[in-house]
């Protein structure tokens, strides 16, 4: 069957969509300039009518900073924002030289109040005062406040923040979902032994089989079964975190896989599994490659860098893909507020829907790529050379 006309049609549509998208941005600077002109005019008029000061009016004209909004959304937080002014306070766990300190982040009252703990007084504070608002807005950290009411940087450097932040809470949610789903599926397998899968079991089985037959088996070889638990866990962990991150409302919206700490740990797991299972051929390839001896000076460092760069690439790829997706979606939404016009909303929403669908693909794709490359690296490490 010849479907090329459909493909052409879709391609044309994509081209049109992207052209419109680019054209839209070409217009942005001039519109931006206009709004700024309007802004300044409004501010001027407000200054002129200074005898009737209105704090409300001043707030209404507060300059919208899309970078701050975007960064706040993709960064971690000590509270989990639900809607409006309501946010779930999350537990703060601080490791201080004197001992462990546990309290609720609600004590900070959205960063407006200090909390007096057992050992110190703490304040939710921006990292560095020198930076512009857009750079440090998302950058709220817990700092120690000295007796003089000022932040004590030396003491702050000594505390370690092990708080259950928004990302940690979202990750725990993922863990609970995964445990719940897969123990249920495992029970189904035990109950219906030897029978055809049903319900959730039949929905997930193609994925299990796909990871086994198309990811693990071709890349790892005959000994793939040993690594299946790791590959499956990492796939579903990334996938569910990606998908939850795409949901804009509570309990989604956390940018877990778009946080470098998460991807760092996942990559570390791959690194450890690859190198623990590496056989003598793998290590010979690293420390005694088949090159002239004098080349070892170059080759060994290159190979060692290679060992580290592979998981590093995994870490950055996942982090960058997911973060980029979140940034694009939020930027598109921000356009409505940049233009201060409801007329732009349909355009923004259309592109957000497009991006969300694309992100849905990316969510699966990145989980798949992480799993595939982990399998590939494991396969390279345990490959037998005859």
């Amino acid at each position, binding site marked *: 069957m010849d479907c090329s006309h459909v493909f052409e049609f879709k391609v044309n549509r994509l081209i049109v969509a992207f052209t419109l998208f680019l054209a839209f941005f070409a217009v942005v600077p001039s519109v931006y300039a206009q709004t700024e002109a309007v802004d300044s005019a409004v501010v001027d008029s407000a200054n002129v009518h200074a005898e009737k000061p209105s704090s409300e009016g001043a707030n209404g004209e507060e300059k919208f900073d899309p970078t701050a909004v975007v960064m706040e959304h993709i960064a971690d937080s000590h509270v989990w924002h639900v809607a409006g002014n309501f946010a779930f306070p999350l537990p703060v766990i601080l490791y201080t030289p004197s001992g462990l300190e546990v309290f609720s982040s609600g004590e900070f009252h959205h960063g407006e109040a200090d909390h007096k703990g057992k050992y110190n007084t703490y304040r939710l504070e921006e990292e560095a005062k020198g930076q512009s608002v857009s750079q440090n807005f998302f950058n709220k950290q817990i700092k120690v406040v000295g007796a003089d009411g000022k932040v004590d940087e030396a003491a702050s450097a000594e505390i370690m923040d092990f708080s259950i*932040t928004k*990302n*940690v809470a979202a990750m725990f949610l993922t863990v609970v979902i995964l*445990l719940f789903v897969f123990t249920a*599926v*495992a029970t189904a*397998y035990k109950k219906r032994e030897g029978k055809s899968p049903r319900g959730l079991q039949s929905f997930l089985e193609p994925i299990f089989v796909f990871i086994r037959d198309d990811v693990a088996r071709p890349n790892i070889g005959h000994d793939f079964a040993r690594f299946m638990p790791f590959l499956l*866990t990492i796939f579903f962990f990334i996938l569910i975190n990606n998908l939850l991150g795409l949901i804009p409302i509570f309990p989604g919206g956390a940018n877990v896989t778009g*946080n470098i700490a998460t991807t760092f740990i*996942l990559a570390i797991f791959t690194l450890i599994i690859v190198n623990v299972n590496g056989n003598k051929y793998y290590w010979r390839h690293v420390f005694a490659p088949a090159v002239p001896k004098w080349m070892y000076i170059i080759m060994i460092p290159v190979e060692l860098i290679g060992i580290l760069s592979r998981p590093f690439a995994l870490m950055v790829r996942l982090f960058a893909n997911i973060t980029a997706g979140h940034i694009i979606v939020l930027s598109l939404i921000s356009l409505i507020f940049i233009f201060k016009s409801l007329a732009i909303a349909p355009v923004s929403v259309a592109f957000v829907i497009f991006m969300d669908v694309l992100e849905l693909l990316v969510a699966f794709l990145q989980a798949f790529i992480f799993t595939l490359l982990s399998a590939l690296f494991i396969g390279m490490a345990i490959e037998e050379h005859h």
Partner: protein
Amino acid sequence: MELVTPSIGLVFWTLIAFLFLLLLLKKYAWKPIMSAIHDREQYIDEALNKAELAKKEMARLTAQNEDLLKEARAERDIILKEAKTLKDSIVNEAKVQAQNEGAKLIEKAKIEIENQKKAALIELKNQVSTLSLDIAERVLRNQLQDKAKQQELVTGLLKDVELN
């Protein structure tokens, strides 16, 4: 730089959460799931192989049945033929026997008839002789009622004797 600097808290909790997840899922989910899938696949493969074997066996049996049927038919034909020959021979034999028997009976009947005929003839002879003697006696009596005639007869008789 905050964006690309891993925070210690999240690193720690991710490590704990992922390790926990990995170990629990490995024990309670992946092992049973993967072994169940593996077992089922093996079972399906086995069943398919068995089905294939059964099919072959079936084909073999059908062929065998056909052979048996053919053999049976051939045998039946042979038996029928034999029976026919047997029948023919029996009929022929019976015919021959019947003919023989018939011939014997006819022979016997002929002998009997001959015997009867002989007996009848003897009896007839006897009767004829008796009758003729009787007749002769009566005639003689009649004739010999006078003396002349008796004389004549004796002379006639004597003449005959002389002639002999």
